[in-house]
Protein backbone atom coordinates (compact mmCIF):
# COMPACT_ATOMS: atom_id res chain seq x y z
CA UNK A 1 0.00 0.00 0.00
CA UNK A 2 1.19 3.47 -0.73
CA UNK A 3 2.12 5.18 2.52
CA UNK A 4 1.94 8.68 1.04
CA UNK A 5 -1.57 9.32 2.28
CA UNK A 6 -0.79 8.12 5.77
CA UNK A 7 2.46 10.05 5.91
CA UNK A 8 0.92 13.27 4.70
CA UNK A 9 -1.92 13.03 7.16
CA UNK A 10 0.54 12.25 9.92
CA UNK A 11 2.62 15.28 9.07
CA UNK A 12 -0.47 17.47 9.26
CA UNK A 13 -1.86 15.89 12.39
CA UNK A 14 1.20 15.62 14.62
CA UNK A 15 1.51 19.32 15.53
CA UNK A 16 -2.17 19.49 16.37
CA UNK A 17 -2.01 16.39 18.54
CA UNK A 18 0.97 17.83 20.37
CA UNK A 19 -0.77 21.15 20.81
CA UNK A 20 -3.82 19.38 22.17
CA UNK A 21 -1.64 17.40 24.56
CA UNK A 22 0.06 20.55 25.81
CA UNK A 23 -3.35 22.15 26.24
CA UNK A 24 -4.46 19.24 28.39
CA UNK A 25 -1.33 19.45 30.52
CA UNK A 26 -1.54 23.20 30.99
CA UNK A 27 -5.27 23.19 31.69
CA UNK A 28 -5.02 20.36 34.20
CA UNK A 29 -5.87 22.57 37.17
CA UNK A 30 -9.06 24.01 35.66
CA UNK A 31 -10.53 21.35 33.40
CA UNK A 32 -10.48 17.59 33.04
CA UNK A 33 -6.96 16.53 32.28
CA UNK A 34 -3.55 16.93 33.78
CA UNK A 35 -0.01 15.75 33.44
CA UNK A 36 -0.72 12.08 32.92
CA UNK A 37 -3.37 12.45 30.28
CA UNK A 38 -1.64 15.21 28.36
CA UNK A 39 1.70 13.45 28.52
CA UNK A 40 0.19 10.34 27.01
CA UNK A 41 -1.37 12.39 24.20
CA UNK A 42 1.91 14.11 23.34
CA UNK A 43 3.78 10.83 23.52
CA UNK A 44 1.27 9.17 21.25
CA UNK A 45 1.87 11.80 18.58
CA UNK A 46 5.42 10.50 18.26
CA UNK A 47 4.08 6.97 18.26
CA UNK A 48 2.02 7.99 15.25
CA UNK A 49 5.21 9.14 13.57
CA UNK A 50 6.79 5.81 14.38
CA UNK A 51 3.85 3.98 12.81
CA UNK A 52 3.80 6.08 9.67
CA UNK A 53 7.50 6.65 9.05
CA UNK A 54 9.17 3.78 10.85
CA UNK A 55 10.86 3.40 14.20
CA UNK A 56 14.11 5.01 13.13
CA UNK A 57 12.50 8.32 12.31
CA UNK A 58 10.77 8.43 15.66
CA UNK A 59 14.00 7.46 17.36
CA UNK A 60 15.73 10.29 15.53
CA UNK A 61 13.15 12.77 16.75
CA UNK A 62 13.44 11.82 20.41
CA UNK A 63 16.38 9.57 21.00
CA UNK A 64 17.07 7.26 23.88
CA UNK A 65 19.29 9.73 25.70
CA UNK A 66 16.77 12.56 25.57
CA UNK A 67 14.00 10.26 26.72
CA UNK A 68 15.92 9.15 29.78
CA UNK A 69 16.86 12.73 30.58
CA UNK A 70 13.21 13.81 30.31
CA UNK A 71 12.13 10.88 32.47
CA UNK A 72 14.58 11.50 35.23
CA UNK A 73 14.31 15.28 35.19
CA UNK A 74 10.52 15.11 35.39
CA UNK A 75 10.66 12.81 38.40
CA UNK A 76 13.43 14.79 40.03
CA UNK A 77 11.48 18.02 39.66
CA UNK A 78 8.55 16.44 41.48
CA UNK A 79 10.70 15.10 44.29
CA UNK A 80 12.60 18.38 44.36
CA UNK A 81 9.44 20.44 44.80
CA UNK A 82 8.55 18.10 47.64
CA UNK A 83 11.93 18.63 49.24
CA UNK A 84 11.59 22.40 48.78
CA UNK A 85 8.78 22.22 51.31
CA UNK A 86 11.17 20.68 53.82
CA UNK A 87 13.88 23.22 53.00
CA UNK A 88 11.41 26.05 53.60
CA UNK A 89 10.69 24.71 57.06
CA UNK A 90 7.43 22.93 56.33
CA UNK A 91 6.62 19.34 55.54
CA UNK A 92 7.29 17.25 52.47
CA UNK A 93 5.13 18.38 49.54
CA UNK A 94 3.75 21.30 51.54
CA UNK A 95 3.51 23.96 48.86
CA UNK A 96 2.00 26.91 50.68
CA UNK A 97 5.08 27.46 52.78
CA UNK A 98 7.53 27.91 49.92
CA UNK A 99 8.72 31.53 50.16
CA UNK A 100 7.41 33.22 47.04
CA UNK A 101 5.83 36.69 46.88
CA UNK A 102 2.26 35.38 46.40
CA UNK A 103 -0.58 34.41 48.73
CA UNK A 104 -0.45 30.71 49.75
CA UNK A 105 -3.33 29.58 47.54
CA UNK A 106 -1.56 31.16 44.59
CA UNK A 107 1.69 29.36 45.41
CA UNK A 108 -0.25 26.14 45.68
CA UNK A 109 -1.75 26.77 42.29
CA UNK A 110 1.64 27.50 40.77
CA UNK A 111 3.22 24.41 42.28
CA UNK A 112 0.38 22.20 41.16
CA UNK A 113 0.89 23.57 37.68
CA UNK A 114 4.63 22.90 37.86
CA UNK A 115 4.05 19.40 39.11
CA UNK A 116 1.56 18.76 36.33
CA UNK A 117 4.13 19.88 33.78
CA UNK A 118 6.82 17.71 35.38
CA UNK A 119 4.51 14.72 35.24
CA UNK A 120 3.67 15.57 31.64
CA UNK A 121 7.33 15.66 30.61
CA UNK A 122 7.98 12.42 32.45
CA UNK A 123 5.03 10.56 31.00
CA UNK A 124 5.49 11.68 27.41
CA UNK A 125 9.03 10.37 27.42
CA UNK A 126 8.03 7.21 29.22
CA UNK A 127 5.12 6.25 26.99
CA UNK A 128 7.39 6.72 24.03
CA UNK A 129 10.11 4.62 25.66
CA UNK A 130 7.69 1.84 26.45
CA UNK A 131 6.43 1.77 22.87
CA UNK A 132 9.75 2.13 21.08
CA UNK A 133 11.56 -0.46 23.17
CA UNK A 134 8.79 -2.98 22.85
CA UNK A 135 8.47 -2.38 19.12
CA UNK A 136 12.20 -2.59 18.53
CA UNK A 137 12.37 -5.75 20.55
CA UNK A 138 9.76 -7.32 18.29
CA UNK A 139 11.44 -6.06 15.13
CA UNK A 140 14.86 -7.63 15.67
CA UNK A 141 13.61 -11.10 14.96
CA UNK A 142 15.60 -13.31 12.65
Amino acid at each position, binding site marked *: MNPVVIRTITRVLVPFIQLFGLYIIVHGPV*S*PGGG*FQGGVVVGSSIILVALAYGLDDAEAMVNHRIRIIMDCVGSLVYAGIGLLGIAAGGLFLQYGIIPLPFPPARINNLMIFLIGSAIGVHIMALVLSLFLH*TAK*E*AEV*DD
Partner: protein
Amino acid sequence: MIDLLPPNLPYFASIALLLIGLYAMISKRNLIKKIMGLNIFSTSVLLFLIAMGYREGGAPPIEAEGVTHYVNPLPHALVLTGIVVALALTSFALILIINIYKEHKTLDSEKLKNL
Protein backbone atom coordinates in the same frame (compact mmCIF):
# COMPACT_ATOMS: atom_id res chain seq x y z
CA MET B 1 -37.15 -0.74 31.72
CA ILE B 2 -34.12 0.45 33.62
CA ASP B 3 -36.00 0.03 36.89
CA LEU B 4 -36.13 -3.70 36.36
CA LEU B 5 -32.39 -4.03 36.63
CA PRO B 6 -30.89 -4.59 40.06
CA PRO B 7 -29.80 -1.33 41.69
CA ASN B 8 -26.15 -2.26 42.06
CA LEU B 9 -25.70 -3.19 38.43
CA PRO B 10 -22.34 -1.43 37.89
CA TYR B 11 -20.87 -3.33 40.80
CA PHE B 12 -22.15 -6.59 39.40
CA ALA B 13 -20.67 -5.68 36.05
CA SER B 14 -17.29 -5.14 37.66
CA ILE B 15 -17.52 -8.51 39.41
CA ALA B 16 -18.39 -10.15 36.09
CA LEU B 17 -15.37 -8.49 34.49
CA LEU B 18 -13.22 -9.69 37.37
CA LEU B 19 -14.33 -13.27 36.87
CA ILE B 20 -13.86 -13.11 33.09
CA GLY B 21 -10.38 -11.70 33.51
CA LEU B 22 -9.44 -14.22 36.16
CA TYR B 23 -10.74 -17.06 34.00
CA ALA B 24 -8.67 -15.88 31.06
CA MET B 25 -5.58 -15.55 33.23
CA ILE B 26 -5.88 -19.01 34.67
CA SER B 27 -7.13 -21.18 31.86
CA LYS B 28 -6.01 -19.58 28.58
CA ARG B 29 -2.86 -21.18 27.26
CA ASN B 30 -1.57 -18.32 25.19
CA LEU B 31 0.51 -15.87 27.19
CA ILE B 32 -0.85 -12.85 25.29
CA LYS B 33 -4.37 -13.93 26.20
CA LYS B 34 -3.28 -14.22 29.79
CA ILE B 35 -2.15 -10.61 29.67
CA MET B 36 -5.44 -9.60 28.08
CA GLY B 37 -7.09 -11.35 30.99
CA LEU B 38 -4.89 -9.39 33.38
CA ASN B 39 -5.99 -6.19 31.71
CA ILE B 40 -9.67 -7.04 31.95
CA PHE B 41 -9.09 -8.03 35.55
CA SER B 42 -7.48 -4.75 36.52
CA THR B 43 -10.06 -2.78 34.57
CA SER B 44 -12.78 -4.37 36.68
CA VAL B 45 -11.34 -2.65 39.74
CA LEU B 46 -11.29 0.67 37.95
CA LEU B 47 -14.95 0.28 37.00
CA PHE B 48 -15.76 -0.61 40.57
CA LEU B 49 -13.94 2.40 41.99
CA ILE B 50 -15.41 4.86 39.54
CA ALA B 51 -18.92 3.51 40.08
CA MET B 52 -18.40 3.90 43.81
CA GLY B 53 -17.84 7.63 43.46
CA TYR B 54 -21.04 8.34 41.58
CA ARG B 55 -23.78 10.35 43.28
CA GLU B 56 -27.22 10.60 41.76
CA GLY B 57 -27.33 13.78 39.70
CA GLY B 58 -23.89 14.97 40.70
CA ALA B 59 -21.94 17.44 38.59
CA PRO B 60 -18.39 16.74 37.38
CA PRO B 61 -15.97 17.51 40.21
CA ILE B 62 -14.82 20.88 38.89
CA GLU B 63 -15.67 23.95 40.90
CA ALA B 64 -18.45 25.92 39.13
CA GLU B 65 -20.70 28.84 39.97
CA GLY B 66 -23.84 27.88 41.80
CA VAL B 67 -23.18 24.15 41.89
CA THR B 68 -22.87 22.41 45.23
CA HIS B 69 -23.70 18.83 44.32
CA TYR B 70 -20.69 17.09 42.84
CA VAL B 71 -19.76 13.46 42.40
CA ASN B 72 -17.11 12.17 44.77
CA PRO B 73 -13.70 13.23 43.40
CA LEU B 74 -11.52 10.91 45.46
CA PRO B 75 -12.21 7.69 43.50
CA HIS B 76 -11.28 9.53 40.30
CA ALA B 77 -7.85 10.21 41.72
CA LEU B 78 -7.52 6.58 42.79
CA VAL B 79 -8.56 5.35 39.35
CA LEU B 80 -5.91 7.48 37.67
CA THR B 81 -3.28 5.80 39.81
CA GLY B 82 -4.78 2.41 39.01
CA ILE B 83 -4.62 3.07 35.28
CA VAL B 84 -0.98 4.06 35.47
CA VAL B 85 -0.12 0.95 37.44
CA ALA B 86 -1.90 -1.24 34.90
CA LEU B 87 -0.04 0.51 32.07
CA ALA B 88 3.33 -0.16 33.69
CA LEU B 89 2.48 -3.80 34.32
CA THR B 90 1.14 -4.42 30.83
CA SER B 91 4.07 -2.90 29.02
CA PHE B 92 6.55 -4.86 31.08
CA ALA B 93 4.58 -8.08 30.60
CA LEU B 94 4.47 -7.53 26.82
CA ILE B 95 8.19 -7.06 26.50
CA LEU B 96 8.71 -10.16 28.63
CA ILE B 97 6.45 -12.09 26.28
CA ILE B 98 8.37 -10.91 23.23
CA ASN B 99 11.59 -12.10 24.78
CA ILE B 100 10.05 -15.37 25.91
CA TYR B 101 8.93 -15.97 22.35
CA LYS B 102 12.41 -15.29 21.06
CA GLU B 103 13.91 -17.68 23.54
CA HIS B 104 11.49 -20.57 23.29
CA LYS B 105 9.73 -19.97 19.97
CA THR B 106 6.35 -20.62 21.52
CA LEU B 107 3.78 -18.80 23.61
CA ASP B 108 1.87 -21.86 24.71
CA SER B 109 2.04 -22.07 28.47
CA GLU B 110 1.58 -25.86 28.46
CA LYS B 111 4.61 -26.30 26.22
CA LEU B 112 6.58 -23.77 28.24
CA LYS B 113 5.83 -25.68 31.41
CA ASN B 114 7.75 -28.70 30.16
CA LEU B 115 10.98 -26.79 29.56
